[in-house]
């Protein structure tokens, strides 16, 4: 994905006769957009592809697209006001991910903090499979410089994203549980309330935390050490070649079980498995076995926000940033040949 935009993307979208751009516009029309609007989207993403800066503004895009006879105002309108359905775009992306056989959902965050502590953060949900990734959710969080409240705002954004995804998922794949949620960012794993919210929604997760994390109490044998407040590094030491162990954390209800697994010398994974057994059945070792599967899930963390250059886009409004992110997402899927039309049914 890192090479997706830039030179390669420009080459793909600016074929001599403009076929790639035309096909993209047709795909957007298939998703449910009016043809003239779909063409404008095609022009927009072609212009973005032509911007070779790491960070760019709407004005830069307009400058690059003068020869397309689409004025800057129409691009601004496309991002700020024009009635095109983000919902349809998201649905198309999710359908494409389902058809491609997604393994997991990655949660990514780009924190863009100003000097005064305020921030404009971007959160992405990315479906990942064997060798591919498709963005399926975006959230833009602008927060004031009030440090204690930021975590709540971010958590709320993540929970909203998950809920929106769950509703869409249920309509596309009824009865199938959501794939597990993974992340490379410690901030999600350290948020106990976020983990509780995910577990309450029966969503499996494997989130990394620093090895210094000391807010976990393991399920202990009566002859094991009894000291409270030990770090995960002490509870699950990192040995030569890693550690094959898995540690269950103490919970009042085992259906909310959480496990710790090794991740790297300085980080551990907090894992919540879901085991589908009828009421009254004993869980036994099944949660541990499932947690081990989740720990072994070597899904790539794609780095979508950076590779799509969404974090480098300067726009006055959050909606503009989000719409830009959605257009870049669907373009990346289109260029990889993974975009499916409305009529295609997920397996």
């Amino acid at each position, binding site marked *: 994905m890192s090479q997706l935009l830039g030179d390669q993307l420009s080459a793909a979208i600016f074929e001599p006769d403009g076929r790639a751009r035309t096909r993209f516009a047709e795909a957007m029309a298939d998703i449910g957009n009016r043809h003239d609007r779909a063409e404008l989207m095609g022009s927009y993403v072609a212009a973005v592809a032509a911007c070779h800066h790491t960070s760019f503004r709407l004005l830069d895009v307009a400058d690059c697209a003068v020869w397309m006879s689409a004025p800057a105002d129409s691009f601004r309108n496309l991002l700020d006001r024009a009635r095109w359905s983000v919902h349809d775009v998201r649905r198309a992306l999710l359908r494409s991910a389902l058809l491609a056989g997604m393994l997991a959902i990655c949660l990514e965050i780009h924190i863009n903090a100003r000097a005064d502590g305020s921030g404009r953060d971007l959160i992405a949900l990315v479906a990942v499979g064997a060798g591919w990734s498709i963005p399926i959710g975006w959230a833009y969080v602008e927060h004031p410089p009030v440090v204690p409240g930021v975590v709540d705002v971010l958590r709320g954004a993540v929970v909203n994203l998950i809920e929106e995804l769950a509703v869409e998922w249920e309509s596309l794949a009824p009865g199938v549980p959501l794939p597990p949620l993974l992340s490379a960012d410690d901030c999600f794993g350290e948020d106990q309330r976020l983990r509780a919210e995910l577990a309450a929604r029966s969503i499996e997760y494997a989130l990394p935390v620093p*090895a210094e994390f000391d807010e976990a109490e393991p399920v202990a044998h009566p002859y094991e050490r009894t000291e409270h407040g030990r770090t995960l590094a002490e509870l699950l030491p*990192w040995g030569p070649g890693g550690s094959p162990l898995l540690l269950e954390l103490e919970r009042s209800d085992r259906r909310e079980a959480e496990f710790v697994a090794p991740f790297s010398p300085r980080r551990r994974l907090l894992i919540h498995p879901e085991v*589908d057994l009828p009421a009254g059945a004993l869980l036994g070792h099944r949660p541990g076995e499932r947690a081990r599967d989740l720990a072994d899930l070597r899904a790539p963390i794609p780095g979508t926000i950076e590779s799509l250059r969404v974090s480098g886009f300067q726009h006055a409004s959050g909606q503009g940033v989000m719409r830009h992110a959605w257009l870049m997402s669907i373009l990346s899927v289109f260029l990889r040949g993974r975009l499916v039309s409305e009529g295609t049914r997920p397996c």
Partner: protein
Amino acid sequence: MLTGEPIGPREAMWSDALRNGSASDRADAALRLGRMLWGCGEATVGEELLRMAADGCDQQVVPRAALALAEALTADGRGEEGAEYLSRAAATADARLSPDVILALGSRCAAMGQVDLAVAVYRDFLREVAVSDSELAAVASYRLADIYRERNELEEAKNLFIRAFRDGSMSLKPHAAVALGDLMLEQDCPYAAEKFYRWVLKADHADLAPKAGYQLAVMHREAGDQVEAVRILRAVALSGHPLYGPMAEEELVPMIEELDVSTTVDGMVDEALGGGQLQFAAEVVRSHCAASRLYAYAHRPVPPHSGVLLVAITLAPSAIPQTPQSPLQLETGDPQHGLRA
């Protein structure tokens, strides 16, 4: 100070305390950082910090650091040096300031065969430990009770197990409950034993619940309550426990045969299907049905069972008899017909 992955906020705080804190803060930070770094595989720095903490004079830190260092050195093959620090931990530990160290030393004594010394350690601990440390007192009670049980002093053991069950953490309670269940059973009190075993079943401990369930099922079977025994054995079999799971499955087969098989297994499957548990229903069919029973399902006209069979066959294709000698095959003609349907 450290290389590699980024430093987290706690580590930064401890590093800062190590540089700028008071003597007490420095000792505490050295202990925490040392143990953490040892766990991260940075043994040299970890050992250095633990030595710094163990050689200090903070009453809460020294015994913990000495014990951590003793364990680390022993694990590293430096047993003699480890023993020195173990002695230091024993000399400086206090039931109120470092109760966890006293407990660790007590279990060491018991493991090394110095049982009388271990009893003395636990007894002193229970006398001196603060009321606020009731969970630790429960651990001491459990360990002491275990020793009394081995010595066949059952009444003393029972009282201590009850204390452990009452005050223990969610980790300890199931152990105490199983011990109490076993004791009650030995003392011919099956009703009391059942109460404790059922508590463990409800707690759903990964290892102890299947064990308690198996014991309970045997009790019910011996009391003539086959249906309840089958119900509990089914739960144990589905737990996937490496020891009690197969044992429960082995017990289940003849018991189901003795019962009205069609009623029991059909009931299980229907219940599972009603709850949308297709996979579980398939497991029931696979676990509890002989090959001939699979055929009976195959030829039942009820639609949901064809779905169950498809999953069951996927899970255990070998369970389907292929030989023409099968009596059901003779009765029903082509055995594959029903399965395909």
